[in-house]
């Protein structure tokens, strides 16, 4: 008995050291600590007394952080050999999903649900994997069931709202109702502060706070950073409230760019609300909507007199406490206002400003000119790809026997997933060897693949956003199918910004035809590729100062509205200033 407790102490100490090393970014040191001897010792402790499961969990978690996922899998397997409990099965399922081994993930999440059939969190996890493996409707149904059993869990319900956009057909009214329902339940207007002590001087410098889980290596950051860079610090003082679970180098960079940065991770809503009020924020901007790790709970209390949602979520929040949503007139034409609880504010031009990655490689010549055949591609999340889209792709491939398609998404390396795709294409008459399905690499590696791609085919109804921009920066145009909802209009907005609206199609037939026509004109494609970066520079898509000014003008207008509501007289000159 003595032996075991001293062993446990030793093991806990080592695990603590490894955690500390990770905390200061020393993955190599942490990995050294997690050596075979330590792992063996932990297994032994567990063998002797299975109540020490927690140590194995801790070990597994750290092994994942140092990128030794296989060993982490072994940890869970070691436990499962002794007992088949739901928690472990679930953790293993999560790990498999993280590793992209979706078939295994599915198997284990199913087992977890079977092992303990009344844990709604487990249904939610299984639902996620179902959606990632193409069973969107099943996944959503299961997620709804889970939420019904977790009435207090606002985040799980947010996740459902997010996932609803991955259905093959979108109904804007249905989506609006669902979002309103969420808001009535978790963010009723009664929670919102209705009177604010901010000084209603219409012309003073404004304090703008941005609240987000994504001040890190994440698509939102690619679009937010140029705004931060472009802000005029004489017009606005910029605060960042970061709900970042895993800070990285990008987080550090953001911290230095804000005038003031506050880490609000794991700080409860009430305290965050106090912080924002103490900072006397005039305009609080949510950048997450219903995506994960959002802090809509904080927005619900309305700590700032003017609240805005922007960029991170492609739909309404449903919340009355949020006054505005910044967008553009292409992604949100005027008739879409009826489906938003926020007032739509259309920025001139396109609603986001893109910052091309520093490590983006230079453009290569058009691959089709050298290969002799055209290569299409899609790099969007697999949840965005539905059968009707695949049918369109098959039609495009059929038009020219030589053409190929490259498809990449997280989980694409999984054998089961690959087989599923091969079958789908075969049923549509396209041979396996013409479609290359694979998994997602690191971003730097991923960008190299554009040297093999001639044309990107967008997904529908959920268009690509970051991917479309990246593709453009790498010289590759996207053919996009337009729909009614915001998510079905990103493509059109991006393409219009750079003068390539011709590549947006309003029907499936047009989508197919345009792709075929483009693929037949290699010379035009080649010129397009070469001149793309010049075209983008000329378009202002990346022009951060200009974008900053547009946003500040919008903020100024919102501020004037609020000042007016406080009885301050806004003269005509003031209104024009804000324009």
């Amino acid at each position: 008995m003595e032996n075991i407790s001293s062993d446990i102490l030793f093991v806990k100490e080592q695990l603590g050291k490894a955690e500390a090393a990770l905390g200061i970014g020393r993955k190599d040191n942490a990995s050294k600590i997690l050596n075979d001897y330590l792992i063996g010792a932990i297994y032994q402790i567990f063998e002797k007394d299975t109540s020490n499961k927690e140590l194995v969990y801790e070990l597994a978690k750290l092994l994942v952080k140092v990128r030794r996922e296989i060993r982490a899998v072994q940890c869970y397997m070691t436990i499962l050999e002794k007992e088949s409990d739901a928690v472990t099965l679930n953790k293993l399922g999560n790990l498999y999903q993280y590793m992209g081994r979706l078939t295994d993930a599915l198997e284990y999440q199913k087992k977890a649900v079977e092992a303990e059939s009344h844990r709604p969190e487990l249904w939610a996890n299984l639902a996620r994997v179902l959606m990632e493996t193409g069973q969107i409707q099943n996944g959503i149904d299961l997620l709804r069931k889970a939420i019904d059993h977790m009435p207090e869990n606002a985040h799980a319900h947010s996740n459902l709202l997010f996932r609803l956009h991955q259905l093959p057909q979108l109904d804007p009214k249905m989506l609006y109702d669902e979002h309103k329902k969420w808001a009535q339940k978790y963010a009723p207007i009664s929670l919102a502060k209705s009177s604010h002590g901010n000084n209603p001087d219409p012309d003073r410098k404004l304090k703008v706070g941005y609240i987000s889980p994504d001040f890190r290596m994440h698509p939102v950051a690619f679009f937010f950073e140029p705004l931060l860079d472009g802000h005029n610090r004489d017009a606005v003082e910029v605060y960042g409230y970061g709900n970042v679970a895993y800070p990285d180098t990008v987080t550090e960079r953001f911290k230095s760019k804000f005038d003031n940065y506050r880490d609000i991770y794991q700080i409860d809503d009430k305290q965050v609300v106090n912080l924002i009020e103490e900072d006397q924020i005039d305009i609080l901007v949510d950048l997450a909507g219903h995506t994960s790790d959002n802090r809509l709970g904080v927005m619900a209390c309305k700590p700032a007199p003017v609240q805005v949602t922007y960029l991170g979520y492609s739909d309404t929040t449903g919340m009355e406490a949020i006054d505005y949503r910044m967008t553009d007139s292409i992604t949100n034409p005027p008739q879409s206002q009826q489906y938003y609880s926020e007032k739509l504010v259309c920025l001139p031009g396109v609603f986001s400003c893109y910052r091309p990655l520093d490590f983006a490689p230079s453009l290569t010549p058009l691959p089709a000119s050298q290969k002799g055949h055209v290569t299409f591609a899609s790099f969007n999340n697999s949840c965005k790809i539905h059968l009707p889209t695949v049918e369109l792709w098959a039609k495009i491939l059929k038009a020219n026997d030589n053409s190929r398609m490259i498809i990449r998404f997280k989980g694409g390396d999984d054998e089961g997933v690959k087989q599923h795709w091969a079958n789908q294409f075969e049923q549509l008459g396209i041979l396996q060897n013409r479609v290359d399905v694979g998994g997602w690499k690191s971003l730097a590696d991923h960008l190299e693949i554009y040297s093999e791609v001639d044309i990107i085919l967008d997904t529908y109804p959920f268009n690509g956003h970051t991917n479309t921009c990246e593709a453009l920066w790498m010289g590759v145009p996207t053919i996009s199918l337009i729909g009614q909802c915001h998510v079905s209009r990103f493509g059109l907005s991006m393409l219009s910004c750079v003068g390539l609206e011709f590549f947006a199609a309003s029907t499936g037939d047009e989508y197919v035809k345009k792709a075929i026509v483009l693929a037949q004109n290699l010379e035009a494609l080649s010129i397009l590729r070469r001149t793309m970066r010049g075209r983008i520079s000329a378009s202002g898509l990346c022009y951060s100062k200009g974008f900053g000014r547009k946003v500040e003008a919008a903020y100024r207008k919102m501020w004037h509205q609020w000042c007016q509501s406080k009885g301050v007289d806004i003269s005509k000159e003031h209104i024009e200033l804000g324009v």
Partner: protein
Amino acid sequence: MTKLKRYMDVMPEPLAEAKFAVESRQLERAAEILADKAEKTVSQIFEADPTRTDLVFEIAELLLQTKNVEQAENWYKKILAKGPDAAAYNKLGRLCEYMGRLWEAVTYQRKALEVQPDRGELFANLGRLLICTGEVKEGVTFLQRAAEKLPQNAQIHSILLFHLHQLSTFEPERLFAEHKKWGQTFAPLKRAKTSHSNDRNPDRRLRVGYISPDFRRTSVAYFFESLLDGHDGQVVETYGYGNVEFPDSVTERLQGKFNCYHNIYGIDDKQVVELIESDEIDILVDLAGHTGNNRLLVMSYKPAPIQVTWLGYPDTTGVEAIDYRLTDVLADPAKLQKYYTEKLVCLPDGFLCYRPADFASAVAPLPAEKNGFITFGSFNNNCKMNKVVIGLWAKILKETQNSRLLLKFKGGNDEQIRQRYHQQFRELGIEKEKVLIYGWGRPDEHLKLYDHVDIALDTYPYNGTTTTCEALWMGVPVVSLVGQYHASRVGLSILSRVGLEFFAASNPEEYVSKTIALASNIQSLAQIRTSMRARIANSGLCYAKGFARNLEAAYRKMWHRWTETE
């Protein structure tokens, strides 16, 4: 047929036939006739009567048109074999210049001048040529003599004013005085129309006319085309008045982008003025200042109520009929207003919007990584390279191990010119192996040469403009020496737009030390190179629509001010 008949009245038949063939673009037929009969005939006549140089000049011209340069040269030499002849020397000089044999051309032009020392045009030819070979001071002296001999010739005086900016020292008061003198002499204010009947509605669509010799493949077009692309058709209606001597594909492309285009080459000033008035232009914008083939004389009549100068010239026009000059606060800080006859209007995001060439290749990897040594480069016109700048470059080469300097300019293919530059460097302790000199080739090759350059060095006091933008677009940072006046501040303006103002130096020591510091950090050089295009995209330097918006706002302000007068 009557043309042919007319020719046959004044010259032997085969020659007349050849000339007619050339004019009807039947070049192959012309070449045949020339080789077959024409040359023999002229030869016979000339041998018999050496005063018939007119026929020799005629045939030489035709030979040039049919690309038989060698034979044309022979003919000129035939004249000179009989004795010195100013016209023959001059033509031979022009031929050599065309062939890139600049130093030879200088010799011939000098000889022409010896024979006819009071022909102003010959002074001008020689002056220009000397400047092209890098002998700026001497060239400017000849231009001054030309101007003295031809006091009525506005164009020659303009050319002189332009080249004064290439001297290594600047005297702003003197330059201002010279420009004002030009204005008073050739574009007196009393000639300008004082009352215009344009419709004074302050908010209506404006008719903006752009008058320029440069709607063709040249630097100005790189910057102007962006504006034309970005203009909002609901705010302005654009008119182009092109004084283009040799139209090309760019001319055609630009023509299609204007709402309305007129070719005004060869049309006299009064007629052009009438044309602009009948078009009811509200704002007439000059894009040339005192550069070649300008139409400042048209501006002097003030056919439009508001006149602006922009882009093509780094200084005041001196023409009082021109109301405004578009610039920015970096290129022209407020205290410089006293050196301009126009009122300075500062555009908020810089006075330039650059349109990268379609044929620009991708940014290549940093050459120093493979080479193991740093290559500096300057692709500016050699008339901007003076003793001061060369001295700084020599210092930089001395203090960086193993480094090279790559120079590229028209005339760089001329062996004698190369030798003169190598000599200058040698006197400063730099062997010729360290200085590589290229001439002009194809435009895409020009940009591709940046694949071999790590750091670009700007010239002083006349900074590069297009060259700086091109270097940046090809990933190469530019170190620029900043001075007090516009021509020495363009580098600062461009670098600031893309966030690289650190590379602008305020004195020669800083220029040298910043370059050396940059050269010693290969890693950061490589990073700067790969991220350059993203950096430019992030900035407003190429944002055509935004630039046009700023310009249109400036036009609107000018317009409002005018509608409120009287």
